[in-house]
Each structure stands twice: as structure tokens, then as C-alpha cells.
């Protein structure tokens, strides 16, 4: 019931597929309250991740996460690039030298990712950003880990909570990101970055565990 370097790579490959499949959905969400590029940005970023993972053959979970981070930072641009990049970078640091991750370690990685995103983007929960999904996910992940869940269990709980966290952005008025320019008119729409968080966590839960 642990997660190896192979699992982390499989999780990232799953993310590449999931992001490509949901590109248009993300575009539409971002068109409604942003500038319509979020789907493109995520797809470009994860295609770069895919390429770099092949080229770099990272040896540890941390190395996989770091390659993911630098690929995103150097290919995405936009707000999502540095934010998701920082998230994976902090997760890599949290993973340290470990060869395998248990449920508690996965939860700790997610917490580190959240801290990175809020340090970078200065968004609080309720600002209608990816933070809303990620914070909900971290709480659920920590609860699941406390209850003894393994990596897949932790990721499943995180993904389900991220769905709720994302859904909760719908009625909100954004205070960060482009959607904030809309004021009241942004209420009633799902935040694209929050949706991406949920999407990634589902992909990780499906492919990153002990299959």
C-alpha cells in the first residue's frame, strides 16, 4: 500500500490524458469568467511534462514531481503555470529522498502544494480560485490519512473533496485572478483552476496508487 516512483510517473501520465480530454471544458469555463486560455495552458503544460518525463527518466518520486514542476513553469505562462509549478515544486521538496510514499506522505505533499500556491498567489479560501478546491482536498486527505488510508485512498478522498470545493466556487464573487475583474457578474460560474485541481486529483487517484 505505498506509492513508488513508477506510480508517480503513471499518475502524471494519467494527468496528461485527463487534461487533454478536458481541454475544451476548461476553455469554456475560462471563457465565461476569464480569457479562455486555461484549457490551452494546461494542455501545453502537461504535454511538456510528458516529454520531459521521457527525456529525464527521474529516479525518485521527488524527481518526478520536480520535472513536472519545471516543465509547467517553463511551458505554461499564464497564472496557472507558476501556481501549479510551485505546487509541484513544494510537493517535490516535501517528498525529499523518499523512495516510496504512504498515505500520510501523500497528504503531506498535498499540504505543501497548497502552502506553495497560497504563498505565491496570495489567495485565500473563498476567493474563487484553485485554492478553494485544493484546500478542501488537503483537509480530506489529512482526515483519510489519519484514518489509516493508503495513497489511493487519500487521493480518492482528496479528489472527491476537490469536486465539492470546486463546486463551491460557483456562487462566489472572485477576488483573485482574471475573474475578479467581473465583480458580481462572475458569480454563478465554476472557477476553471479549481476544476483543474479536481481533474488532476481524480487522474492521480485512478493511476497513481497500487494497481
Amino acid at each position, binding site marked *: 500500500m505505498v506509492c513508488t516512483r513508477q506510480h508517480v510517473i503513471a499518475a502524471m501520465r494519467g494527468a496528461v490524458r485527463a487534461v487533454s480530454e478536458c481541454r475544451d471544458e476548461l476553455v469554456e469555463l475560462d471563457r465565461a469568467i476569464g480569457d479562455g486560455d486555461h484549457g490551452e495552458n494546461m494542455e501545453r503544460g502537461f504535454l511538456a511534462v510528458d516529454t520531459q518525463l521521457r527525456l529525464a527518466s527521474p529516479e525518485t518520486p521527488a524527481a518526478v514531481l520536480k520535472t513536472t514542476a519545471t516543465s509547467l513553469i517553463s511551458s505554461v505562462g*499564464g*497564472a496557472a503555470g507558476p501556481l501549479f509549478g510551485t505546487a509541484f515544486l513544494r510537493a517535490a521538496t516535501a517528498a525529499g529522498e523518499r523512495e516510496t510514499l504512504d498515505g500520510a506522505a501523500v497528504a503531506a505533499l498535498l499540504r505543501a502544494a497548497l502552502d506553495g500556491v497560497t504563498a505565491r498567489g496570495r489567495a485565500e479560501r473563498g476567493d474563487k480560485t484553485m485554492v478553494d478546491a485544493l484546500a478542501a482536498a488537503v483537509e480530506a486527505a489529512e482526515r483519510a490519512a489519519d484514518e489509516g488510508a493508503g495513497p489511493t485512498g487519500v487521493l480518492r478522498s482528496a479528489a472527491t473533496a476537490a469536486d465539492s470545493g470546486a463546486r463551491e466556487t460557483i456562487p462566489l464573487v472572485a477576488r483573485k485572478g482574471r475573474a475578479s475583474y467581473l465583480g458580481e457578474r462572475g458569480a454563478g460560474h465554476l472557477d476553471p483552476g479549481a476544476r483543474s485541481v479536481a481533474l488532476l486529483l481524480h487522474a492521480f487517484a485512478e493511476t497513481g496508487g497500487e494497481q
Partner: protein
Amino acid sequence: MKKIINDPADVVVDALRGMAAAHPDLLRVRTDPAFVTRSDSPVRDKVALVSGGGSGHEPLHVGFVGTGMLDAAVPGPVFTSPTPDAVRTAVREADGGAGTLLVVKNYTGDVLNFETAAELVRAEDVGVRTVVVRDDVAVRDSTDTAGRRGVGGTVLLEKIAGAAAERGHGLDDCHATAQRVADNVRSMGVALSAPTVPHLGEPSFTLAEEEMEVGIGIHGEPGRERVGLESADGIVRRLLDPVLEDLPFRDGDEVLLFTNSMGATPLSELYLAHGIAERMLAERGIRVTRRLVGPYVTSLEMRGMSLTLLKLDEELTRLWDDPVRTPALTW
């Protein structure tokens, strides 16, 4: 989607190739990563001015590279900020040893990517300072939100800080001048139609035949409010009033008035609107002593316009008047 393009995925690089062909004397163009520098970069012992941001706002920023303005511009994909790596590479080519001033429009993506770039560059022992442009009064000015967007004021800042750098001012001094422009410039825009991002293929929003979007940004993001189409007098007043109140601009102030097309507005309509704005300013005792009229900060083929007012002082006026030689601005 009606565009003169080949593959939508290549529009930025294809356009840069055309720029390179069109301005061999002024520009040097790289495509991987994509950026543009002055043909004589790096200029030894001169502060380098480097800017960038999503593409689709041309001539901003690439058209302002040249003597007396930018040393380098880094265009991201359409409406998406460039990556830190691209900015770092451009700074490396542009910096002449006197440090680099980064000009960043206040969008989360630009701020974060340029911040990261600045860290990377500092690690390489290049002096870097950043000025953030946030002149769009359509957005609430507040610290607990993303805050105001950078729009038309960016051109004025790049021209004036570029002149300071060309005169040999140091990095701190160029930064202070740039910040003075940022502090004294305000803008607001209106859209009559939406732009279409090439790889999306559909307009970013839709406006009915008799509607306009007031307080529009430059990315096809919706604006402050949607109202019925008005006469030119009504439109200009809607833009000018909030701009004037914000600084505020007062009776007796000397200002630069910049009447900007969002892309597809005929020049005749732009001049017409400019004339109205000058009249309204005169009525309030504000003295327009410098002006710029044209499509300088655009949003692809969006129809509409923005008004930018910069409160001038003697030094800013002198720097504005200094010679400039770039593809889009020359005197």
C-alpha cells in the same frame, strides 16, 4: 474564424518572422524561446528595458523595441503571459551591464512569471527591478484582490522610461521615473465587439447589435457593465469621467491624452473621439499638452477604444519628447 493565418498554433512565431523581415534595421528576432531585441543589443552600460506579456495586443510590446524605448520584448502565446525562461533569455541578451528594468502589466500570470524570471536573473548577478502597470480604473483598486489591470498606460511608461534609459540614467533612476508614470496614469476602455483568439476560433464574448461593453480589458475578458450603444459624446464621457475622478486630475493640470484603438476601430472614429475628449478636458480646465492617437494597445480585432490620461511634469514631458525609433513609434 476569418483570419489571415496558416496554422493557429504558429501565429506568434509566424508574425515575428514577418516583423523580422519588415524591420531588419531595427530588430533582431528569436523564435525559441520567442522574443525580440534591438538590433544593437546589448547596449553597453545602458539600463535595459524589457517587457512582455501575452500576444494579441500588437504593436504592444514587440512594436516598441528600438532606440529610446524597449531593449527587448517577450511575447507569450495569444493572451497568455510568457514563461520565466523566455523572459530570462531575453534579459540575458538585452542587459548591457547596467541592469534591467522589467515592465510588467498587472495580471496574475504576468506578475508571477516575471517574478520568477526576476529571481532567475538575479541569481545570475544581473541587477533587476520591476515596475508594475495598473492603470485601468474600470477595476476596483484594492490589495485583497488581483487589483487593477495594466492597459494603455504601459505604452506611455515604456516610452518615457525608455528615454530615461537612453539618456544614461541608472537603474534606480529609471525605476523611479517609471514608477512616477505608473502613479500618474489612468485608463478606461470600451468594446463594441469581441476579439477571436486564433486557436479558440470563436469570439471571446458576444455583444448584441446595440450593445457595448464598458470597462473592457484587453483580453476579451468582459468589462464593468454592458450598456446600450451610445453616441461618441456619450462613449467618451463614460471613459473620461471615471479616469478624471480617480487620480484625480484637476483644473490646471497638464496632461498627455492617449486615445487608443482596440484594434479594428477606423482611424476616423478614433480622431473623432479624440476631438471630443480634448473638448471635454478643455471645459474642465485641464490642459492637454501632449497627445498620442492610434492603435497601440489592441485586443486582436476588437472594435472599441480606450482613453489614457497621464499627468505630466517637466521631466516626464521632456522624456516623452525625446527621440524614439521603433516599428510602431518614431519621432
